[in-house]
């Protein structure tokens, strides 16, 4: 097991390194930040001086080498825009994103799995119909469309929840719902089909032969097997939720990494973009690894010999 872990850690490190390299190169193609850091009236000479001060006139490879050395020391550089350590700015935006992604995931699992299981147990019933509508609707429109809808409904029309911002749990409800519904749709559909497959399995029939009560058969035997693919799916979703929540964060003014990236890219704040992307990539890869290990615990057939 240990060898496998080390191997996977190495692979993860390579993946993160690749991601950082890609972002490092591509963002420098967007444009020269000195245009924003100096007023329009600045002459080209001023910009050349500033570029040199910032070390941006060196070849990309040299810059990347220096950046990696910096990274090794845990120093992500100074944000051009905030004059604050870029790592600190990115880390500051992490808790809201993790909170939103986890809340959305809890919703997705909390709604998706029961709906999926019910739809599988009573195919064609009202629950199944409602479940499928819920799933199809969830993925039929972009999350920002739901966000705008929810704000109009729950914040303005019925004024139950705040329209946006961060702080109290009440602020978390609508963004998590908008993001969660999109993820729940996927979980519901996957759970339904996976559960339908498992219910047709011989060992479920054998469990009934043993005289177990129906809910025991469903929960102890069928569900545990049906959830295996859901675990894999959820890890992919969690990665998407972190990065993909940008549009929801923008509508709800949620200070997450998505919106930070959106603003930083627009303001050519290289160091913060690099720090934020490194962080999201690292988190995604870490979660992927944790789930692999968890997968082996749940499913004995997977040995990492």
């Amino acid at each position, binding site marked *: 097991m240990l060898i496998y872990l080390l191997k996977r850690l190495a692979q993860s490190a390579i993946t993160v390194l690749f991601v950082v390299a890609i972002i490092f190169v591509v963002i420098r193609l*967007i*444009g*020269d930040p000195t*245009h*924003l*850091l*100096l*007023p*329009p*009236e*600045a*002459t080209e000479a*001023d910009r050349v*001086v*500033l570029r040199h*001060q910032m070390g941006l006139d060196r070849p990309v490879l040299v810059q990347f080498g220096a950046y990696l050395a910096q990274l090794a020391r845990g120093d992500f550089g*100074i*944000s051009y*825009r*905030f*004059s*604050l350590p870029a790592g600190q*700015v990115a880390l*500051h*935006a992490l808790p809201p994103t993790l909170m939103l992604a986890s809340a959305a995931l809890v919703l997705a699992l909390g709604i998706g799995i029961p709906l999926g299981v019910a739809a599988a147990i009573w195919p*064609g019933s*009202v629950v199944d*119909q409602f479940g499928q*509508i819920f799933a*199809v*609707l969830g993925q*039929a429109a972009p999350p920002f469309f739901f966000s*705008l*809808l929810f*704000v*109009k*409904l729950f*914040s*303005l*029309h*019925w*004024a139950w929840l*705040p*329209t*946006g*911002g*961060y702080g109290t749990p009440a602020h978390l409800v609508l963004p998590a719902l908008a993001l969660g519904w999109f993820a729940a749709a996927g979980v519901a559909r996957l759970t339904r089909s996976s559960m339908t497959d498992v219910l047709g399995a011989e060992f479920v029939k054998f469990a009934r032969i043993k005289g177990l009560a129906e809910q025991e058969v469903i929960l102890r035997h069928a569900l545990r097997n049906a959830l295996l693919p859901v675990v894999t799916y959820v890890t992919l979703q969690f990665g998407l939720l972190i990065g993909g929540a940008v549009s929801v964060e*923008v*509508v709800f*003014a949620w*200070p*997450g990494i998505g*919106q*930070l990236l*959106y*603003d930083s890219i*627009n*303001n*050519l*704040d290289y160091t913060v973009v690099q720090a934020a992307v490194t962080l999201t990539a690292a988190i995604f890869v870490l979660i992927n690894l944790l789930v692999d290990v968890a997968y082996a615990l749940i499913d004995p057939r997977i040995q990492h010999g």
Partner: protein
Amino acid sequence: MIPSRFRLALLGAAILSSLSLTAPAQAIGGKPAVDKDTLVVALSAEPGNLDPQVAPSVDSAKFAWNVFDTLYGFDRTGKLEPRLALSHEVSADGLTHSFRLRDGVTFHNGDPFTSADVKYSLERILDPVTKSTRRPYFINLVTSIDAPDAHSVVVHLSQPDGAFLNKVAGYLYIVPKAYTQALPSPEAFAQAPIGTGPYKFVRHEVGRSLELTRFDGFWGERPAIRNIVFRFIAEPSSRVHAVLAGEVDLVTEVAASDVDTLKTNHGLEVLSIPGGSPLHVRIYSKDPTSPLHNRDVRLALNYAIDKDAIIKSVFRGLASPLTSIIPSSYPYGANPTLKPYPYDPQKARQLLAQAGYPKGFETSVYFPAVFARGAGEAVVAYWGQIGVKAQLKVIDYVAFNRINNVHQSGPLAFSEFGNAIYDPIHVIGGSVSRTGTWSDYDNPEIQALIDRIESVSDLEQRDAGFREILRRTQEDGQAIPLAELALNYAQDSALQWQPQIGGWSLSFRQAAWK
């Protein structure tokens, strides 16, 4: 039969959307978002750097006037008024500006304000290590600054500049010398800014909020509201929803189309004031081979557009007609006597034929995504009706600035001018004078007028001089002025506050709850 999944989905979507589109709830007027001691302001974007000498003016406009002071400042209409300086004299040759400083002023950290701080502040801007965005305005202008005694400073210029006092008021933010020099790095000041303004810095949560609180040792009249909280809401519709739901007290940059719905809401007060920025189409007319080099073509492009119709539909009437690149809201230098080119497509076609383009020509126009897209599409459509087939190239605002500042945004480009110093020279110098950063225009007579006016400091003479320049630019079709957009704010009806005319800067020195 159980209705099929598909029909239920349609039903669900219809109910959801119809419910959501009924009239928004009435805003909870008269109730502050937090309490009577706090003002919550919703900004569209976060001021990145809190060092007013380093932050670009669009960022510093959001907070600087509350936390810092300048020697002279602008009142609500843009007229200069003494702040940290009591008086200002200019020598006969216009090369020496001397200021007498106010006494008994202290910084937020208790340090006394003296002439040494003014000298240090200007020199800090000039020092490249600070990476100050104001440096280019002073670097070739100021030769030296001395502080003969604690309450007077004398600035020596390399050549006379009629707008120097405006530049001091717009750019020279005063920072404490002892405190700033003791900081570990130039960037450190941004993390804990200290000024002499009525509000002092409390906390900046990146991405979430910026908090200021009243500075009890303020030299002037203490503001009524104790705390100010800035919140950052990028999505325009979300900003409007926030004030409707009573979560914020004041919202900036309200879209024109939202003003109509907000007006029907008696819980809110909507303020529309002239924005001071000329929305116009910049013309690259230097290149002789380009049709735009021909005056008739430029005039034709002006006549072809029905500006009033655009103002009424796209800007919902919240904009005023524009005759030149200096809007009427300027305190001086605008030319109210000019009449805008009327909508006359017939004359436009005739001018085009006269210029040798009976069937029109093909061109393209850059359109920064930050403007109301309808305006771009309307102008292109109007030009299309007289045979000028222009491709609308929508571009991100940051990317646009990069090419617009280096003469790459030709042949036509929608653009605007913010002006932190309320003197037309910033705009005229920048976009009409031969060497302007945004100028691809060269008119010798007008150039002579510009060179002369730069050293004139008397207001009447400057005003007359600029009027003449503007008359000639309109007559020569230097640009295609469209409209002066209003800046729209929405605030809780219980809040007593007036926005700055012709400018983006926010000052809450006079703000109070009714």
